[in-house]
């Protein structure tokens, strides 16, 4: 049984035939933009304590784009998604699909498709019945044959056309994911919502599936919002990403922009692997200093205590900006070399990634260069430079 499944999976998932989709009719519903205006969600727990899950969230998600809602767990991203779906009732604010306000529209009237993190497939129904399930509630009633044809069409779109008579329990995680997407798309929704779509897949499948989601989104042109805590996932396929924390939007932009120009310390810390190095510093009389007194740069910022952020790959061996460090350890990780550097006066070491061809030895004091850095206010985390 297991071997058979594996085979099946290999057959389906590896050769993604690009011409497959051309003969499938994907009559694209006109895609709409999704506008959230001051969207707020406050939960009351049993002791009447308030938790701000989402706070004054304003965003316009352009029609036909793939947007990633990114944030650590508990940041309110899933709540936002559920509010867009209509499963949660906003405490305040409005939701628009195009010109139409849907804040109080029940989920089934919004024209959305939702893919759950654990796929939420009905275990007692076959793949075909699962995909047909949403159609059964349509009024006026749809003919059985029409439903079957639509289900087949969606299944072909996600490349599971030959698994229609199986039960979800007989499918691999990746195949279940496809069934869930097909089920979400079968009613030709205006907006597709995906909750942590890749978190239940293993690393190899994750890579394939995210490309698959990208492809399906491109082919259907449907406005797609997906929620994830995995930055790589969000950055690799999104047209734009929205970074959230504690229910508050931190930044929205194209993935690379967000990475290159983080709006604040949270975004800077959240994105990037290995994470950004953050070291304390001060600005005095237009000079940016480390706490050991070393002046790094001249800076046009009022005097204050700051956090300096340097991404590991910002370090080089031959730039003007210099830091005196002691190299504690060197790790060769293929193309690059990672060095752990101790700065005098700091407890934590900083991590630098340098191309491997530049030879570095451990246990020596050197001057290490870096090509850029971010400066944040230490209290508010706001980006200063």
């Amino acid at each position, binding site marked *: 049984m297991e071997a058979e499944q594996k085979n099946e999976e290999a057959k389906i998932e590896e050769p993604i035939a690009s011409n497959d989709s051309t003969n499938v009719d994907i009559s694209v519903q006109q895609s709409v933009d999704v506008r959230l205006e001051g969207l707020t969600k406050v939960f009351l727990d049993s002791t009447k304590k308030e938790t701000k899950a989402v706070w004054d969230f304003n965003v316009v998600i352009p029609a036909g784009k793939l947007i990633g809602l990114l944030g650590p767990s508990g940041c309110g991203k899933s709540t936002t998604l559920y509010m867009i779906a209509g499963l949660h*009732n906003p405490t305040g604010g409005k939701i628009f699909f195009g010109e139409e306000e849907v804040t109080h529209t029940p*989920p089934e009237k919004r024209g959305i498709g939702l893919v759950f993190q654990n796929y939420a497939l009905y275990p007692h129904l076959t793949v075909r019945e699962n995909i047909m399930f949403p159609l059964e509630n349509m009024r006026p009633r749809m003919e059985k044959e029409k439903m079957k044809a639509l289900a087949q069409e969606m299944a072909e779109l996600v490349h599971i056309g030959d698994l229609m008579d199986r039960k979800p329990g007989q499918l691999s995680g990746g195949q279940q994911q496809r069934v869930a997407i097909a089920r979400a798309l079968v009613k030709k929704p205006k907006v597709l919502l995906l909750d942590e779509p890749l978190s239940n897949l293993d690393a190899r499948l994750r890579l394939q599936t995210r490309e698959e989601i990208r492809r399906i989104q491109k082919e259907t042109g449907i406005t797609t919002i997906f929620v994830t805590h995995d930055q790589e996932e969000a950055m690799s396929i999104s047209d734009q990403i929205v970074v959230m924390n504690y229910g508050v939007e931190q930044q929205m932009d194209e993935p690379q922009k967000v990475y290159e120009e983080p709006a604040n310390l949270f975004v800077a810390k959240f994105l990037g692997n290995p994470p950004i190095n953050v070291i304390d510093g001060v600005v005095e009389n237009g000079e940016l200093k480390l706490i050991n007194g070393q002046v790094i740069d001249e800076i046009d910022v009022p005097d204050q205590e700051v956090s300096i952020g340097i991404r590991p790959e910002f370090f080089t061996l031959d730039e003007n900006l210099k830091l005196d460090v002691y190299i504690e350890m060197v790790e060769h990780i293929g193309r690059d070399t990672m060095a752990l550097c101790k700065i005098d006066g700091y407890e934590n070491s900083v991590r630098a990634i340098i191309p491997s061809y530049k030879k570095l030895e451990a246990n020596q004091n050197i001057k290490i260069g870096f090509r850029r850095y971010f400066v944040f206010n230490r209290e508010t985390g706001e980006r200063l430079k």
Partner: protein
Amino acid sequence: MLEYKNDIWKALLALAPTLLLMAVFTFYPMINTVFSAFMEGYCYGVWRDNGNTIGWLSHYGETIMQSSYDAEGNLIGFTETYVGIGFGNFVTIFKDPTFIDALKNTAIMVIVSVPVTVIIGLLISVALNGIKKLQSVFQTIYFLPYVTNTIALGLVFAVLFSSRNGLINSFIESLGGNRVAWITPFAGKNPSYFTCLFVLMVYTVWNGLAFKILVFLSGMQSIDKQYYQAAQIDSTPRWRVFTKITVPLLSPMIAYITITSFIGAFKAYSSVIAIFNGNYGPRSNPNMLITVVGYTYDKLGKMSNVNELGRACASALVLFAIIMAITVVELWVSKKKVHY
């Protein structure tokens, strides 16, 4: 929308059948039983038609007895009303030697049958858990009593222990022993309390083992095999494995089974009347092994007598009180002893 949704109307619709039926057949009887138990001379009315009871009436508040007669002078019914609230019914039943017998008999049955069934059940389960071949065959055989009719098999046990030509006496005789008057008289000797109780207990154990073995065995099969493997490496003797590993890890099941067995044993009734063909004892003493439940139903059957209903209720409440007390004590003990 969903987290604030209030489904009170749907809930009412879904719960209506259950709540309605329970109001009539659970909650009202509960209150009514308690009331009736404390009403001395509690009133009920019987309406008869040629000696058949055709209807019942209840009235509260007057203190007279009225009899109604039809044109020919036949009693067609009478009502009696309660005279006050108090412990009269309880006093009456506790003065009734039959009730005292019932309490005594029930207590003896509980004390004998519960430990015996639990221990034998445990031993059988351990033995069953220790074998691989034929395990499911044995398990199926041991489960058979669970799916049989209590009355039918009670009659069978009466036949098995028949003094004249029962299997047991034939077996004793073939071993050279003398026949025993188990539950029917033999050679002028009437059956004794002990022999009757013995037969009843054998049947009770036979009947009760199935469920206990099933629960114990499924409990044992969920114990991590590593404990046993570890014990085997140390070549721990079987008895120590049983007392030091199996019993402690099975203690939640043992506690559960003990409590339910106690409750079940206190309610003994069907097994008694089956063995004694509708009575509570041998012909020489038909009330020999009457139980509290039997006493209650007897009172219920004789409701044409003055306020037997109140006494039935009082007796049922005594049963309830005993069961509650035992349950509380056992829960308290098992909290201390059970290794969860």
